[in-house]
């Protein structure tokens, strides 16, 4: 009772209040008089200094961190989405004429503002320089320029050209400007003049030409006229010219007779009529070249290997077996000879078919006039229809048709093979490779990881050894992936693969079958890489299974394995699948190790095809991640490849997302089934 003040201010414990009440008359008054000041200042001080104590700033700090993370991720996705989705939209075809009379036609792919150096100005043509100086002074030294995709690489040796705004005298969008996507030589920009259906003649005498022309005249379709294609020199260059049949006597060099749809509109209509059919024949030809020839080659190779095997057998045969081995070798050689004979015939047959298609296809050609390339005059070119993948008169078509082009480009991208050093065409082999690799990886890593985790959690007696193993497994996740690549190459390819070759594919040696990078080895390398993820996730899922369930199972007389199989695993399955999801996310995006163990720039054959044994896990494969690297940084036409980088990135993200969502959907289904999973 000697310190009533300290007692009352230290709180209102009920024990103290009895004392306090006893002292109330005197002490109570002194308190009310003297204490409030002291207490008041202390309270104010507290409330001032408690900004951090209340946690208000921490809400902002943590919330801010989250917002920044989200923004960065969203920004990245948005960039990829915008650039990736925009790639295939057909842009306007612009034709500009500069002050010094150069003409450029093409699509504007990007633009920028820059500060030109003085020597750039002095290097300009006299007509342009004043405009340039004026523009630069007006904009404080800054100049705007556009990158034109001008195509026509064969004529100009460039795909792209920068055009500064000050150079431009006039700008137009020619109605019939047309973009051609070709199998080779990149894009072509020009204006269609005619579509020709050629008839080649063996006899180029005027009389023969006339009679053939008369025959054509009688059977030509509506809207076509019969002309002669003549090759002559026009202004220093050789050019093909269409001349009337009447001039048959005064030709410089006869090329062919042609049924012609003249004028851009007629040509475009005729193109659309003929293109599908021509391309279909082209596909037929490609299939002949690829599959039929491939099949014949394959059988020939099999026969050759059989001979080789028989030879090896003979080498190893003991004297007793020698006679039989020799007989087998002879038989194999006979088969090989038969097959070679058959193959030669087959090749001839296929060749003949291909030639027939070629003859048919090369008759159809589109005649285009370029806008002139820089200082060159406009030029007429003949484009074979079967080499045109797509023609887009971009300035004439509306949104609907552009959408059609957009969709057809996407479908080509998703289902076709790459061409033009991967900068054009599709990425189907890469999609296939990525998905196949990820699936094989999952199939390999999940059982392996689950078994390892089960041993660690269920069987192993906790102790320093188990802890060490666990730490080692966790650290495995931090090893740089390229190290796994090196290990995969050294172990899977050069040790395991080489031994498999030694045992099973001796006949093909020294060409490696499994002793090199391939789909299987890449998948296994990535399985190793993602193993820690699965082990950790499974361990957590297994340890989250309530002990009461295990005890219940043991009490029913179940053995340890029965308990694991029937109780622990089903219950932990959602968590295990979470591990698989993480492994897929990690594995599908990995590129560095793949470069060492099997991903290649261009894999002509898919790992699954129609040739026995149909599945070829030893083949090298294409991978979207590696494709991004290759297209973006290894391509000669890097400017054209740039948009493909974004599109391929978008695709890779989409595929990883699809794989993940499939796994998540599976997990949710299972979670519902074994309600109460922890993950």
């Amino acid at each position: 009772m000697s310190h009533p003040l300290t007692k009352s201010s230290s709180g209102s414990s009920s024990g103290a209040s009895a004392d306090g009440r006893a002292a109330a008359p005197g002490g109570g008054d002194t308190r009310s008089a003297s204490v409030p000041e002291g207490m008041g200042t202390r309270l104010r001080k507290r409330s001032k200094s408690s900004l951090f104590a209340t946690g208000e700033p921490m809400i902002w700090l943590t919330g801010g961190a989250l917002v920044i993370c989200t923004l960065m991720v969203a920004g990245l996705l948005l960039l990829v989405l915008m650039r990736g989705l925009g790639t295939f939209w057909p842009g306007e075809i612009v034709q500009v004429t500069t002050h010094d009379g150069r003409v450029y036609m093409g699509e504007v792919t990007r633009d920028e503002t820059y500060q030109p150096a003085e020597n750039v100005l002095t290097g300009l043509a006299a007509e342009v320089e004043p405009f340039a100086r004026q523009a630069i002074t007006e904009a404080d030294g800054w100049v705007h320029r556009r990158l034109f995709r001008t195509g026509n690489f064969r004529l100009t040796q460039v795909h792209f050209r920068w055009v500064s705004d000050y150079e431009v005298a006039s700008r137009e969008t020619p109605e019939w400007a047309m973009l051609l996507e070709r199998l080779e030589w990149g894009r072509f920009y020009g204006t269609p003049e005619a579509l020709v259906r050629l008839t080649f003649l063996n006899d180029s005498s005027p009389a023969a030409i006339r009679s053939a022309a008369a025959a054509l005249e009688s059977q030509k379709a509506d809207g076509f006229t019969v002309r002669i294609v003549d090759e002559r020199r026009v202004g220093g260059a050789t050019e093909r010219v269409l001349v009337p049949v009447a001039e048959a006597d005064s030709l410089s060099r006869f090329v062919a007779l042609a049924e012609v749809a003249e004028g851009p509109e007629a040509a475009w209509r005729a193109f659309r009529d003929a293109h599908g059919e021509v391309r279909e024949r082209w596909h037929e030809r490609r299939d002949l070249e690829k599959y039929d020839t491939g099949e014949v080659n394959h059988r020939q190779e099999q026969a050759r290997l059989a001979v080789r095997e028989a030879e090896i057998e003979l080498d190893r045969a003991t004297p007793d077996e020698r006679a039989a081995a020799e007989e087998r070798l002879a038989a194999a050689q006979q088969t090989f000879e038969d097959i070679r004979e058959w193959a030669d015939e087959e090749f001839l047959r296929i060749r003949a078919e291909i030639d027939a298609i070629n003859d048919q296809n090369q008759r159809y050609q589109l005649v285009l006039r370029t806008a002139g390339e820089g200082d060159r005059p406009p030029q007429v070119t003949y484009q074979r229809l079967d080499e045109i993948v797509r023609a887009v008169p971009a300035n004439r078509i509306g949104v609907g048709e552009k959408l059609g082009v957009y969709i057809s480009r996407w479908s080509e991208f998703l289902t076709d093979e790459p061409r033009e050093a991967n900068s054009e065409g599709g990425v189907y082999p890469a999609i296939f490779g990525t998905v196949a690799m990820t699936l094989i990886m999952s199939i390999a890593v999940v059982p392996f990881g689950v078994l390892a985790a089960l041993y660690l959690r269920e069987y192993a007696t906790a102790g320093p050894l188990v802890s060490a193993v666990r730490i080692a497994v966790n650290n495995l996740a931090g090893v740089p992936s390229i190290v796994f690549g090196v290990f995969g190459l050294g172990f899977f390819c050069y040790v395991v693969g080489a031994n498999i070759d030694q045992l099973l594919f001796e006949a093909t040696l020294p060409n490696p079958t499994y002793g090199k990078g391939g789909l299987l080895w890449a998948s296994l390398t990535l399985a190793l890489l993602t193993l820690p993820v699965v082990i950790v996730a499974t361990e957590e899922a297994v340890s989250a299974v309530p002990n009461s369930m295990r005890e219940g199972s043991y009490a029913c007389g179940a053995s340890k394995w029965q308990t694991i199989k029937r109780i622990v695993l089903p219950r932990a399955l959602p968590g295990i699948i979470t591990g698989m999801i993480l492994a897929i996310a990690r594995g599908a995006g990995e590129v560095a190790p793949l470069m060492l163990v099997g991903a290649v720039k261009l894999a002509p054959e898919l790992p699954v095809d129609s040739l026995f044994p149909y599945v070829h896990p030893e083949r090298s494969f294409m991978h979207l991640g590696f494709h991004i690297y290759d297209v973006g940084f290894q391509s000669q036409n890097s400017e054209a490849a740039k948009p493909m980088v974004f599109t391929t990135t978008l695709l890779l993200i989409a595929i990883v997302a699809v794989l993940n969502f499939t796994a998540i959907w599976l997990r949710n289904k299972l979670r519902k089934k074994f309600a109460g999973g922890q993950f």
Partner: protein
Amino acid sequence: MTEPAAAVDPQASNATAQDVGRTKGETQDALAAIAQGASFESEIHESLQDEEAVLEVQGFELWYGQAQALYDISMDVSGGKVTALIGPSGCGKSTLLRSVNRLNDLLDIVRIEGDMRLRGDSIYDPSVDVIELRKRMGMVFQKSNPFPMSIYENVVYSLRIDGENRKSVLDEVCERSLRGAALWDEVKDRLDELALGLSGGQQQRLCIARAIAAEPEVLLMDEPCSALDPIATGKIEDLIEDLRGEYTILIVTHNMQQASRVSDYTAFMYLGRLVEYGATGDLFTKPHLKATEDYITGRFG
């Protein structure tokens, strides 16, 4: 469902009660002696000698690492009867129960001495196959622990692990067990549904059905009602009433009323020792030891 009418064991009259070896006065400070670690001899009523013992505990001692949890327990559990284990928390009831089907083996630190016998067969002999042993017993836990599978699969679990796959057998066992656990009418239309969707009381009865599916020789119940509301508790107690005679039941309970309602015999344990063991009626109305009386009347513990 009504509360069991027979609160006190009707068989209590069979026991001739007044055959005490020691007087109350002599053992008044028995608990204090136990607390000090002095040796102590359990007070076992003679009424038990008339019964046929299915499970015999013989000088059983158990250690968790260094800490001894059970001291020299010897008791016979009567066949076809319900035997309750009571005592304050931490006295070793559950440990004793879990020792019967050797669930304590799962802990590496457990060490035992002495033995138990199930119908004369040693439980702790090194040659005993623990899994075969557990198949002769069923166990119901404090917290219901249905497996993450359908009701049907839960019930027939012990048959499944024995490799029984004949549908007719499984169906028959499932229905019999669920009827035995008084759950059949409630779940017969949804046997394929997940067991975790049942209510707490139903889950516990499902666990009982699972425990009796393999027709065990002994049914061990570890506070089966402690997590249940009074109505569910009543149903479980009715169920135990129904199972009496058919199964030998050893039940751990905290609830004195429950012990007196459902059991034929009661054992009172304290700090790892068996203090007094006898017919429930005798133990609750005229215990031999003062300590027992104090506990059951709520004066301590």
